[in-house]
């Protein structure tokens, strides 16, 4: 099994009792759990339910085919195969349990300590983990066997030690992640001791991923144990699936069916354990499928779009989820026009649907989202989805909110700017380079040659946003959609970026839609404003009239919440400054 290289799950909104139940609710998970339960029961009661003689050789009954006396036949020594299969269950399960307990005890405790205290604990334990991870466990087990002899239980203890890094890395990553959650800091400033913080806030987060990992480790332990016995390294007195495989392999030409039964047992339990782990992971992480819903727009012909608009939106509805009954509508009945050279502000609080509207125009809604009604028109012409996709990077451009995460970390800024020019505008490499330099210069970057060769993590947020703006205007678009273009920036940088956007908009005469929650930004750059609430536009108008004479109560509430700077607080009078509370 591999340690958690995927991002650690942000678990936890669920409580434990429901975990088992939600696994059982998945059909595959329920079947897999039932299989595991069956194996455990057989392991416990096995010796009392065997139908035949598992131990004594009967030379008169070797390699019998399945029949009434021997349901699964007999092996090369004439012993009953079904009975041996049942007896062997116990050692397999017990061996896996030993390995699991050892691995979990070592891995979780070291992971907790290293993740919580970091420092040299982390260095030492992580180095130790890397040692174990460099060793193939089968080679280690054989080396150990050569000096301590054939002992299954010791082998499983050693295997537990070797795979403990899987638990270590998982626990470490989870704890180190949660260690800097604010609620752990809050617990410390509440006066909790380290032990109580670990017990109360950290163990609960580790639990779920550890259970998932344990199911995987158990499967690997059963497999490796069978491998050892198959090689003849096991305890000859013990009946095991691996030993039975060895017997069967010797008789592969005479009675191939002998291989089938232990193989079946091993495959069943391994697959069941993996499926349980996977179902748990799905339940906890709610991992989404790769599917991406496609739009089912209404027949576009019914809308009449006024001539001369750069962008028109009519009766736009955006919904998530395929199921008509369960789908969540996040944008409804949104209509607006933007003339060439006009700047429209789309204002609202979080969840108002302003960003979803912008994504719908660009046809880049996240997985599961689609336009369920209405249309988007560009340059007075109603567009299909394919047409809008084609216009992206040509006549329609986008400026994102968070500059850093919107640049690919693996490519230089120059490569990211020139690639679309070469692919879409069919420029040569030299042309694209010259164009990129010119654009970087235009957006106010002082040393464009140097910046072209830098990677995103080497530049500041403000510079990254300028680069993204340069990329957006590269094709001199007619329509520019900016999603909170200054929100992630520092105030002083924000003012510079707003100045730049205003200049560029005037220079190219672009129609612009700015999505924002900040009325200062609206006042600074917008000609008109549309106020959104719960997915609908509640008020549209010229900036000045909306600010001075808001019509809708929600607009008035929003404007009323702006902190006016008329007066500051008086210093507290001496009588109230005793600092003692009620």
């Amino acid at each position, binding site marked *: 099994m591999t340690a958690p290289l995927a991002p650690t799950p942000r678990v936890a909104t669920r409580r434990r009792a429901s975990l088992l139940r939600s696994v059982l609710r998945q059909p595959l998970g329920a079947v897999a759990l039932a299989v595991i339960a069956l194996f455990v029961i057989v392991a416990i009661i096995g010796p009392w339910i065997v139908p035949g003689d598992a131990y004594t050789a009967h030379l008169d009954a070797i390699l019998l085919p399945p029949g009434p006396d021997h349901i699964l036949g007999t092996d090369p020594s004439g012993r009953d195969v079904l009975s041996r299969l049942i007896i062997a269950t116990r050692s397999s399960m017990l061996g896996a349990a030993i390995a699991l307990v050892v691995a979990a005890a070592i891995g979780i405790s070291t992971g907790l300590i290293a993740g919580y205290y970091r420092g040299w604990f982390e260095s030492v334990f992580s180095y130790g983990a890397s040692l174990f991870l460099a060793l*193939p466990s089968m*080679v280690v087990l054989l080396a150990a066997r050569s000096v301590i002899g054939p002992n299954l239980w010791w082998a499983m203890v050693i295997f537990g030690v070797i795979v403990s890094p899987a638990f270590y890395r998982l626990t470490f990553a989870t704890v180190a992640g949660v260690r800097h959650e604010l609620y752990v800091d809050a617990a410390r400033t509440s006066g909790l001791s380290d032990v109580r913080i670990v017990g109360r806030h950290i163990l609960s987060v580790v639990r779920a991923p550890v259970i998932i990992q344990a199911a995987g480790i158990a499967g690997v332990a059963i497999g490796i144990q069978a491998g050892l016995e198959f090689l*003849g390294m096991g305890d000859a007195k013990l009946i095991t699936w691996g030993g039975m495989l060895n017997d069967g392999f010797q008789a592969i030409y005479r009675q191939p069916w002998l291989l089938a039964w232990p193989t079946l047992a091993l495959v069943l339990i391994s697959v069941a354990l993996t*499926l349980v782990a996977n179902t748990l992971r799905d339940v906890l992480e709610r991992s989404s499928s790769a599917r*991406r819903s496609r739009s089912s727009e209404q027949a576009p012909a019914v809308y009449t779009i006024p001539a001369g608009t750069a962008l028109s939106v009519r009766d736009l509805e955006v919904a998530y989820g395929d199921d008509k009954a369960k789908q969540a509508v996040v944008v409804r009945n949104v209509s607006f026009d933007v003339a060439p050279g006009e700047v429209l502000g789309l204002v609202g609080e979080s969840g108002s649907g302003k960003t979803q509207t912008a994504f719908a125009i660009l046809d880049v809604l996240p997985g599961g989202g689609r336009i369920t009604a209405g249309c988007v028109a560009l340059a007075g012409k109603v567009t299909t989805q394919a047409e809008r996709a084609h216009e992206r990077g040509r006549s329609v451009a986008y400026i994102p909110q968070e500059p850093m995460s919107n*640049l690919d970390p693996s490519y230089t800024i120059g490569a990211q700017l020139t690639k679309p020019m070469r*692919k879409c505008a069919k420029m040569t490499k030299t042309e694209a380079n010259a164009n990129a330099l010119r654009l970087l210069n235009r957006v106010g970057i002082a040393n464009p040659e140097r910046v072209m060769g830098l990677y995103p993590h080497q530049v500041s947020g403000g510079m990254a946003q300028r680069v993204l703006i340069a990329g*957006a205007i590269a094709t001199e678009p007619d329509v520019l959609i900016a999603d909170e273009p200054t929100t992630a920036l520092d105030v002083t940088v924000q003012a510079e970026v707003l100045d730049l956007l205003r200049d560029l908009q005037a220079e190219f005469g672009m129609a612009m839609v700015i999505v924002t929650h900040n009325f200062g930004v609206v006042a600074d750059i917008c000609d008109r404003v549309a106020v959104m609430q719960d997915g609908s536009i509640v008020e549209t108008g010229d900036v000045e009239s909306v600010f001075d004479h808001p019509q809708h109560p929600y607009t008035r509430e929003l404007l009323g919440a702006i902190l006016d700077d008329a007066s500051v607080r008086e210093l507290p009078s001496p009588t109230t400054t005793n600092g003692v509370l009620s």
Partner: protein
Amino acid sequence: MGRFIARRILAGISLLFVITSAAYFLLYLSGGDVARNLLGPTASDAQVAAKATELGLDQPLLNRYWDWLSGALTGDFGTSWASRAPVTELLSGRVAVTLTIVVAAVIVSGIGAVVLGSLASSRGGWVDRTIQVASLVGAAVPGFLIAMVLVLVVAINLGWFEPTGYINPSTSITGWLSTAVLPITALAVAGVAGVTQQVRGSMLDERRKDYVRTLECRGLSSRTITYQHVLRNASGPALNVLALMFVAMLGGAVVVEQVFSIPGLGKLTVTSTLSSDVPVIMGIVVVTVVLVVILNLLIDLLQAWLNPKVRLS
């Protein structure tokens, strides 16, 4: 970049030194009365003492370790207790056999996983579900079981490939293929399955990132975005899994070689384990760790090439 490589090489050497030293002391300290074990219960005390002197077991452990270490640095791992042959000679032919098979399995795993993983994450629907279930089952089933099923069905019943034996690729490429395809398949199933899961998962994570939307809005085709941007950024975690798979395959090769009777490192491990031939086992441990260290170094270089943050820090 140069410092990065130097640091990784140094880390690899320290890993090699610590593991082999620990293995040496554990193997020689816990071995009990080796000479007695080798000669059996019927030997006289004098015979046992003579044997111990012959094997150098009467020397203090630290002296023996020092001798072993200085020998190992020049490629001399001592002589086998069982066959009296030099360990280096026993290892030399076999390492190539195992390495050929395991490296082929790693390459198959890497390519298979990239194809299946990107297919699953970009197509979705039943393609995704089929690949998911297949990779779950493939990763769960132990490799030697797959090896036995392959021997039984493909080699014995269908007669497509040789059930046992090994032909060197330098002797005959077709002969090598007829003997190596099945063992490579047996090892690669788990590799393909495990790495596919990681590729699929990281690509889905990567696809949700903001820069993908921005690239879409710049007019890049989804093909360009998937293979030049998403896959590249998703490859880091997948390469780490591939490195772990290599270690797992070295272990899996021990059993798979037994099933196909291939004269590789695995077969040597089994015979020397049964005869408690500690010098040979030490040699095997050293070779295994050297291989792992070299592969990890290659993976690190690949990571640095793909990820500028690694390279420039």
